[in-house]
């Protein structure tokens, strides 16, 4: 299996709490980069600060043209789409919101699928809309691993449910089951 280079995570309603729990359980030696797209944050600095309090890895806002860094959590800034170029650097766009969302999880996931192919893990957490489902399908088509939170376990089940319906998943797990799997996939 191809080594995991990057983990992309998408969430919306209920996302900050779920992210805090997930990032708090990742192995602090994780070599992969973690990239987060969350709609729910009212202020990005608050989200970064909140996540930094819980995450085992350093948390920063993703910055355009900067490399996607291993061993760090990088959060999409508000009101821009975040994309990953094949050269493994971040790009931003102010193209129209997708399904009322900017940043859009679909936009991040589809660009990451192109950049990393099978070296990507994509995670869909709690959320109240269908963003991320089409992007997750791209990830799977490109050979990446799809992890979706069990809808019953999610604060808002619509997003994981839509992802399961459109894209399916390689792993459908509770929040607490995710970090051990990600650690295992990345550390071996």
């Amino acid at each position: 299996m191809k080594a995991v280079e990057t983990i992309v995570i998408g969430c919306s309603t209920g996302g900050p709490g779920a992210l805090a729990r997930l990032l708090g359980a990742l192995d602090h030696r994780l070599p992969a980069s973690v990239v987060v797209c969350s709609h729910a944050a009212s202020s990005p600095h608050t989200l970064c600060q909140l996540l930094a309090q819980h995450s085992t890895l350093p948390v920063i806002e993703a910055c355009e043209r900067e490399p996607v860094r291993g061993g760090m959590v990088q959060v999409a800034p508000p009101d821009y789409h975040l994309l990953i170029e094949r050269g493994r650097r971040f790009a931003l766009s102010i193209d129209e919101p997708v399904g009322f969302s900017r940043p859009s999880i679909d936009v991040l996931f589809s660009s990451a699928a192109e950049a990393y192919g099978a070296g990507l893990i994509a995670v869909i957490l709690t959320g109240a809309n269908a963003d991320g489902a089409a992007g997750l399908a791209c990830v799977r088509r490109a050979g990446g691993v799809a992890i979706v939170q069990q809808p019953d376990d999610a604060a808002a089940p619509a997003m994981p449910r839509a992802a399961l319906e459109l894209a399916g998943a390689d792993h459908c797990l509770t929040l607490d089951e995710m970090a051990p799997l990600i650690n295992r996939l990345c550390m071996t």
Partner: protein
Amino acid sequence: MNPVALNLSGIDPELDDIELNLFVSAMRQRHGYDFAQYAPASLKRRVYQLVEQHHTTNISTLTGRLLHDPTFLPQVLEGLSVPVSDMFRDPPVFRALREQVLPALSVHPRITIWQAGCARGQEIYSLAILLEEAGLYDRCQIYATDFNDAALRQAREGIYPAREAQAWSRNYQAAGGTCSLADYYSARYDFIKLDQRLRRNVVFADHNLVTDAVFCEAQLVLCRNVLIYFSNPLQNRVLAMFRDSLLPGGFLCLGLRENLALAPAARDFEALDSSLRLFRRCPEPVHDHEGG
């Protein structure tokens, strides 16, 4: 992104690249528009959206139509440009323009301003309102440029969906507006139309940052969220063009999240407020970046 455009994405990346390169070549060789130095991920996404929007089966079919159907170019340009903005988007930036930049400009008897990539004109009207309220408008010559003719036409008209008005009014107030935004537009049915007096000193013109050159000596250049779509060499080239268009001490206003760390021409600017991406041209360019 719509599902269909996503369905096309990533099935065969190598084939995608060939098709995208042929599309870019067709745009350049047949129509003189050069997208080769656009950041690839966003460009590709837009081209896929065009494929979906025009119901062509793949990029090659789109390219074929682009080559053989002379009426098709404007629609493609519309799809490849960035016509999205709001009035007073990022209010703290407009507040800083009002409180820091305009007072500095007010010492000049004539003020030249260039907005590069004006799209549908929301920011030009925002700027015009600031200038009116500062009592500077009648001293100003404002150039609003874009490569998208359809967007320029819409910018001239200044007609926008009424559903935007409420959010734009909030932005205007947050930017330190002294009146009511409604004083500057008339509402009819589902649209608002900006007071056309606001564009009496505005020249809307076709200008392509990729291929066209310096054309004015300005005290203020605004170019917000355009360079984010450019690769590093093109970003640097355009930044150097802004430097050469600005008088010493002139102001440059970019988008809130733009990163100039990789552009050598950025050294010819000093930050006025780096978090707001407001810069001033240094008195004399300190480096020569020709060909950079």
